[in-house]
């Protein structure tokens, strides 16, 4: 599956989504009561499901990585974006009883609240798109780049990470060494 064409990739994405949505629905996760029940501690299905999924996924990811069949691609460690985002996300999850994936499965299974949650999500995504150019600097204050907890150095053939462009300034400020940068991207960042 080295280089898939776009059609294959889309089809596989669709298939993955169908299985994902069905599993969420069968696991009772396409139901705000299950998710709020986990948050209040009355129902541990979310923890059991996610714990197992993470354990299995971690094992598989490790095996794939050792055989060079996948990449390690941690999302950037932006303390401001992550902490602010996690607080907003947790609060929103407590209010709606959903998250982006479970809301989609809930909407599909015919729950109106899932449809409303998705509507709110799209609206917020649009606001994010409109504010991102100004928000970006704030979100990436003090960024540590891509931090991997096990084994440190992400062994990947380095496709130029999108955030590499913003790291130099932050890296200089915190006294960290940035990864070698693509000069033209770097120039683009200064131009902004």
């Amino acid at each position, binding site marked *: 599956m080295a280089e898939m064409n776009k059609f294959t990739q889309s089809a596989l994405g669709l298939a993955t989504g169908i299985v994902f949505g069905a599993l969420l629905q069968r696991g009772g996760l396409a139901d705000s009561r299950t998710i709020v029940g986990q948050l209040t501690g009355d129902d541990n299905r979310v923890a059991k499901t996610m714990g197992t999924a993470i354990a299995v996924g971690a094992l598989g990811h490790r095996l794939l990585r050792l055989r060079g069949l996948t990449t390690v691609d941690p999302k950037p460690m932006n303390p401001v974006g992550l902490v602010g985002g996690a607080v907003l996300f947790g609060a929103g999850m407590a209010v709606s009883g959903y998250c982006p994936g479970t809301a989609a499965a809930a909407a599909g299974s015919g729950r109106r609240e899932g449809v409303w949650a998705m509507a709110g999500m799209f609206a917020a995504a649009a606001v994010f*798109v409109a504010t991102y150019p100004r928000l970006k600097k704030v979100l990436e204050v003090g960024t540590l780049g891509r931090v991997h907890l096990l084994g440190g150095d992400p062994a990947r053939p380095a496709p130029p990470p999108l955030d590499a462009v913003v790291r130099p300034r932050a890296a200089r400020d915190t006294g960290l060494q940035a990864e070698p940068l693509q000069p033209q991207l770097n120039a683009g960042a200064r131009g902004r």
Partner: protein
Amino acid sequence: MSTHRQSAGPVAKTEGGTSPYLIGAAIGLLNIFAFKAFRKGIGVSGAYESSAALVARHVAPDAAHVNDYVKARKEPPKFNWESWLVLGTILGGMAAARTFGGSAASGIDDRAGAEPKRSSLASAAGGAMLMFGARMADGCTSGHALSGTAQGAGSSWLFTPLMFGVGSFLARRARGAQRRSKDLRWQK
């Protein structure tokens, strides 16, 4: 969040049938497939952003500062496999609810005229809050909590416990307030 109905608690717990460990293992395997096929784990919230950006570009490119957005993201928004994945998730939820008749818990909800458990405003407002948070953090329950943690990403191991901690704190507070208002009794 005061709109959450408590009465369904013990009923909802026993229903659904399938073991959560089995569902979890299957989701883990699916994620392994994604790691191999897409060289990336399952992630959902990014597709909301790119779809919103695509719509904004068609509808109101100036109001949404789409050009600045594309410059800041270094990449034009695309309708890619992740967007198909979200569409698939909707279809999968639909297929499962139809094929298996839904779990008993969702059957209650799906029945026409059933009382909604949450106001539409709470659902939409909560959805908006969490999506903005997810985009700030560059991931959600799937991108961070499932896929990021599985590959040992520092960011995901910061995001996930914090997000569940905040959600748990607020949900417990809300439940406490609800109980107190219900029977004027202080619940610990």
